[in-house]
């Protein structure tokens, strides 16, 4: 943890209440920072607007999964019971979407759920076991009862002293420096 030799990762500000970090997030957004994030033990209602985030695109992954599931189900049943080995049961039609529906419906839900889960992992770049934030002992409280805001050094508006002043004076937070290896 020698900050002289290590590359700085960013500045980490600590807050005690949801209201405080909510205000700080709005100030960061208005100050024009782009490479920053807040870390909270639970999702704070309205924080996406306070940070100026776009709507989450997870739904597209769900849709693709569901679409694939439904047509896989229908095609599979058509192929198996009508095309590859026509199976006559009770004189009923070899294929109709009606009897194929329950299975296709379940496949829709199954693949939608997988699409949602893996879409979320993909968008969040999880699993990600290395993170410079984990080197800070206080950051462990971010899953308990503290709220953190980190402005990264890669942000074009980042300046070690100016940003530190911004966080301590405008946002009234205790600030520490984070480093990368």
């Amino acid at each position: 943890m020698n900050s002289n030799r290590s590359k700085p990762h960013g500045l980490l500000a600590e807050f005690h209440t949801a209201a405080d970090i909510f205000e700080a997030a709005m100030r960061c957004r208005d100050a024009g920072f782009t490479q920053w994030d807040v870390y909270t033990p639970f999702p704070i209602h309205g924080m996406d607007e306070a940070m100026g985030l776009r709507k989450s695109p997870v739904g597209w992954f769900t849709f693709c999964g569901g679409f694939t599931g439904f047509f896989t189900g229908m095609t599979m049943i058509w192929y198996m019971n009508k095309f590859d080995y026509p199976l006559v049961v009770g004189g009923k039609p070899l294929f109709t979407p009606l009897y194929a529906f329950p299975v296709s419906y379940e496949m829709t839900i199954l693949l939608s759920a997988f699409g949602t889960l893996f879409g979320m992992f993909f968008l969040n770049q999880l699993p990600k076991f290395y993170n410079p934030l984990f080197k800070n002992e206080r950051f462990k409280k971010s899953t308990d009862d503290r709220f953190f805001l980190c402005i990264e050094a890669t942000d074009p508006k980042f300046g070690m002293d100016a940003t530190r002043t911004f966080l301590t004076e405008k946002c009234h937070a205790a600030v520490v420096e984070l480093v990368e290896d």
Partner: protein
Amino acid sequence: MASPGKSAAVKAPEPPAELVRESLVLNNRSLGWITNAIAGVCEKPMPMWWWPAFIVSVGGMLTMFSLIAYLVSTGVGVWGLNHPAAWAWDITNFVFWIGIGHAGTLISAVLFLLRQKWRTSVNRAAEAMTIFAVACAGIFPVFHTGRVWFALLPGYLFPAPNANEIWPQFRSPLLWDVFAVSTYGTVSLLFWYVGLIPDLATLRDRSKGVMRRFFYGLFSLGWTGSNRHWSNYEKAYLLLAGLSTPLVLSVHSIVSFDFAVSVIPGWHTTIFPPYFVAGAIFSGFGMVLTLLIPLRSLFKLEDIVTLRHVDLMCKVLLATGSIVGYAYGMEFFIAWYGGSPYELYAFKNRAFGPYWWSYWAMISCNVISPHFFWFKKLRTSVVFVWIVSIFVNIGMWFERFVIIVTSLHRDYLPSSWGYFTPSWVDIMTFVGSFGLFMTLFLLFIRFLPVIAISEVKGVTPQADPHHPLGGAKGHH
């Protein structure tokens, strides 16, 4: 106090006293208290009662597995199945267990979509119950085939051709059921895991031991609580809830198709899907209460799982129990009004035939017991609620037994009538399935947070930045 343009712009004004909602977490507990109370359960050594409970449960589980080995090596004849009643305890147990699961999904998905915030205190344990119940349920239909390898090998259950190049037959509701139940088990597990990720990160950050830190760290995937992550996470959670809702309704509907699509009197009715779904939710809430009432007092979680939660779940029991009672009445009415002598006989035979005792056990447990919950005093008396929840479990097992066995044992031809009596293997396999269920549940208590930590924090007043208490810290 608040300077204009700063706090005043963000905070909502304090609502009038009569509009203030009762807090979901009692005694204005702080966020840190919530973490300690819930994470503490699986971090401290288990209390003394845990070990005897665990040993008995594992004993039950091993009994079940031994009896399954006996069944597979000897044949399905070790069960009491006979010619008219080729389905009896096996499928009764299957429908019983799968129905139990439905309350977990109802709490986690349907109540989430309906924005019932009280669900956060009970959803984790209820979802765990769902997954363990589905695991118990799956055992019975798989092993009632006897020579399981034929069922599991291609051509019967799995969509692959058998030795004669014939594919499975997709017009059969039994095959729909395979897809419904396996999808249900998988999606319930995914939903449960997504909910666990932030809490596993909490346990990772608190853990002292190397093993615990490694495993919680591994399964929490490097979760940081970043809001950019929460944004996608919350959307994914909402979508999974939206997917689980039609799923849970479809699963028990398809289970009911196993019966309703056949032509057996007493099974071939259109009321089956909604009647089965209501019964499933009824039985599942019975089991949730059976598990959570002891859990909340043994681990001192009364401030999080409050009497209000018990009260609300009793109201669900009352509502679904009334639907079930209505369905029993409507079945009888249609049996008479429909004019089919076979159908009418099947129902008369249920109530007054050789299985009259099971019918009246079902009626007294399911129709009478929920109606105590019209009274708030009884809904908030935990001992009373716990006893009634046991009766609901018993009654719902009998419901499935009544539907399956009384319809099968006397169908169209009196020459093929018979009587089913369970063998000791039937009985002990079912008892053993409770061992499997409780083993899994006790391990869940031992290693995972029994209440969704981050979700409970999210519904406290201090979690809302606009709430008048948004800056408050609460009591330790």
